[in-house]
């Protein structure tokens, strides 16, 4: 788990080593344990390492035996031991015990198709010295990030956009279409990002770049064709067996593995499976909220007692969220409509402070096994729309979102109005997501007249239409909703803004048993009627978890992970804001200068927030979305200072006399690696 960056010059000019160092410097936080850099012909590959597997032998960039292939790799190939044996049987000889070397030999043996054999979470760039070709790949569900850009005859790539922006030839500006997507779907749609000219390699894609070609191809897709005829009991047994194996593989590490434990079903399952698979102490970590509306401490205690883990929680207050939010946006590299990444950032800090580099998490269960309230909402809306006069059907609306107090207080008449289904909606491919997307799109009201004019006539939904797989129309509505959530929000927000970027800000690697591709494929093909049986979400998973997790956790009603929002930033009228940057970045002058939003509308929103009335979902999203966009402009466009946010070198590194500004960027460690490789 690490950070990577690099450059390939297809214009024949020599690669500037200093520039590659600078690119890597921007993402130093991802890999504080070691650094490496290799210039090989037209390519410069760099790597910041978080040492987890083969601590001694796994240094990167790494080459094959004859130096014809060089790789820089972020992530884990969990089945590397099995792959290694298979490759050895075919005559490959290994110099290390690392998973990195397995990729090199697998590429030699199977070519680009090698990735289909990997069970893992990866982003890598592999330079073929003889072919003068760069092969980039990203894992199936988008756990590990990979961005790229072309400038002149140069191809740049990096684990984060910062690495690309560290190159002086790159122009840093917002992409209005990327922002339009965020203010519709909550995230940009890869390969687009919110920065013009910077692309994200979509999950499950390979990219091959050479002087003459630029080939982007998908190597894997989830298939929701039902494998019917199985009972719920059989499905549950199969699910448990697969999840146990997925967890076992994700405990492979040469450093200790901890676990996030939220008190919800999903992370209690992964923790329980880890508990079964390990002897000795299991360390778990969680977030507790000062605000009872969001706090899940009671269930965390239940889980901790039942699973006998050694637990630490970080207590999150409103001011904590406001305080770290600028750094959260710096790491997320996109506007956020929710503050929920901020507590995850604080949690990773706690984990790192406790000496852990690796954690298991329960992320992915809601997408794979059908847990989200949005799925339930879509099911009820569709059921009701088939018989709109039925009061019994309409009353099912009362079972939606029980944790939202304002909605709970609504009359049935209003619920009917909120969840109203237009006749034409029923055949929409995004029937499930229409209410969310329409609500979010209302935030574009705040865009400045110039931005509204630029985006006039654009249909953001069409961006989504372009990515629908050919089989989509044949899937059941429930599966279509699952696919949309898995293709858009999972990589675009959950695994990035709330996942990789928050954890790696503190050099912590997340591992996701629910995102093992075998689990994903199995869950996608479950009989649809069992995914949500009636309105019982994650039915198969719950059945699989009986006997594994405490009954109280199994029986609790679902509470999605949320965090306090506008009130983290705004105090009642007359008092200064909680944080100075809020006043500054939302001031009419700054809003006008930056040009994305309308100053008067933002002032009106602020006044409303300051008036003390509880804000609804839309107003909260507007405030967080506007503030985070302003932070993005401040940190990425106005001033771009990656080194200021980089974490200090570890003591271990200082001992080895590595990287330090005092040496003028002299890279003794890298030089030694290279000298050894060359000789």
């Amino acid at each position, binding site marked *: 788990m690490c950070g990577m960056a690099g450059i390939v010059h297809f214009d024949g000019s020599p690669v500037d080593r200093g520039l590659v160092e600078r690119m890597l410097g921007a993402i130093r936080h991802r890999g504080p344990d070691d650094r490496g850099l290799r210039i090989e012909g037209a390519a410069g590959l760099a790597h910041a390492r978080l040492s987890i597997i083969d601590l001694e032998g796994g240094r990167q960039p790494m080459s094959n035996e004859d130096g014809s292939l060089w790789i820089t790799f972020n992530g884990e190939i969990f089945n590397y031991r099995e792959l290694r044996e298979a490759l050895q049987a075919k005559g490959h000889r290994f110099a290390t015990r690392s998973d990195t070397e397995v990729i090199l030999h697998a590429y030699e043996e199977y070519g680009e198709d090698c990735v289909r054999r990997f069970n893992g979470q990866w982003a890598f760039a592999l330079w073929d010295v003889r072919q003068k070709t760069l092969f980039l790949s990203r894992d199936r569900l988008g756990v590990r990030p990979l961005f790229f850009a072309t400038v002149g005859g140069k191809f740049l790539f990096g684990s984060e956009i910062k690495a690309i922006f560290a190159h002086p030839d790159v122009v840093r500006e917002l992409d209005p279409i990327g922002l339009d997507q965020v203010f519709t779907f909550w995230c940009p749609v890869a390969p687009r990002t919110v920065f013009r000219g910077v692309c994200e390699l979509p999950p499950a894609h390979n990219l091959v770049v050479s002087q003459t070609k630029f080939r982007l191809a998908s190597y894997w897709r989830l298939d929701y064709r039902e494998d019917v005829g199985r009972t719920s009991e059989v499905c549950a047994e199969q699910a448990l067996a697969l999840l146990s194996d997925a967890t076992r593989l994700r405990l492979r590490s040469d450093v200790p593995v901890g676990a996030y434990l939220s008190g919800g079903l999903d992370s209690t399952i992964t923790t329980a499976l880890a508990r079964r698979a390990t002897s000795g102490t299991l360390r778990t970590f969680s977030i507790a909220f000062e605000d009872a509306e969001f706090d899940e401490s009671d269930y965390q205690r239940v889980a901790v007692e039942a699973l006998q883990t050694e637990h630490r929680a970080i207590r999150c207050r409103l001011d904590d969220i406001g305080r770290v939010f600028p750094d959260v946006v710096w790491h997320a590299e996109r506007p956020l409509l929710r503050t929920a990444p901020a507590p995850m950032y604080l949690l990773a800090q706690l984990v790192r402070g406790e000496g852990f580099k690796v954690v298991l998490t329960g992320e992915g269960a809601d997408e794979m096994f059908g847990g989200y309230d949005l799925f339930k909402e879509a099911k009820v809306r569709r059921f009701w729309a088939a018989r709109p006069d039925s009061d019994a059907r309409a009353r099912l609306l009362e079972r939606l979102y029980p944790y*939202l107090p*304002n*909605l709970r*207080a*609504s*009359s049935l*008449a*209003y619920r009917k*109005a*909120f969840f*109203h289904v237009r006749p034409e909606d029923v055949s929409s491919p995004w029937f499930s997501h229409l209410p969310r997307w*329409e*609500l979010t799109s*209302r935030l574009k*009201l*705040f865009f400045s007249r110039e931005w509204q004019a630029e985006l006039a006539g654009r249909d953001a939904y069409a961006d989504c239409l372009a990515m629908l797989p050919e089989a989509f129309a044949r899937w059941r509505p429930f599966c279509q909703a699952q696919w949309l959530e898995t293709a858009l929000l999972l990589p675009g927000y959950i695994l990035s803004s709330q996942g990789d970027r928050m954890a790696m800000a503190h050099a912590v690697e997340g591992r996701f048993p629910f995102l093992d591709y075998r689990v994903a494929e199995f869950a996608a093909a479950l009989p649809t009627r069992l995914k949500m049986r009636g309105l019982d979400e994650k039915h198969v998973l719950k059945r699989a978890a009986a006997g594994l997790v405490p009954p109280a956790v199994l029986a609790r009603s679902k509470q999605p992970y949320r965090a306090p929002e506008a009130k983290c930033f705004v105090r009642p009228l007359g008092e200064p804001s909680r944080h100075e940057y809020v006043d500054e970045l939302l001031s009419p002058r700054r809003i006008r200068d930056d040009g994305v939003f*309308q100053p*008067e*509308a*933002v*002032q*009106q*929103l602020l006044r*409303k927030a300051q008036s003390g*009335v*509880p*804000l*609804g*979902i*839309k*107003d909260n999203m507007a405030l967080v979305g506007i503030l985070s966009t302003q932070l993005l402009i401040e940190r990425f466009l106005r001033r771009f200072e990656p080194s200021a946010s980089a974490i200090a070198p570890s003591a271990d590194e200082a001992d080895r006399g590595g990287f330090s500004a005092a040496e003028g960027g002299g890279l003794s460690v890298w030089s030694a690696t290279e000298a050894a490789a060359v000789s």
Partner: protein
Amino acid sequence: MNDIASTLRTFVRENFLFGQDTPFSDDDSFLGLGIIDSTGVLELVALLEKQFEISVADDELVPENLDSINNLVRFIQRKREKHEPAAAAAQV
């Protein structure tokens, strides 16, 4: 009557449209315009209770009473009519 409507219009413009000059008529449904959610309904209720000194019962929380400027005006007037004779009687 005009005062009531204009107070309501100002409230809707400031609170739900954030001062934007989006055109809407007194008959337009707030739900249809997409400017109101469950919290918005409670904001309207708070306005009625505070500004117009009307108490709103749970069974009155329906779009027919609250979902346009004209619906609100009619609702407010109806509530006042009901309320006033009682108040007059109490003074005797």
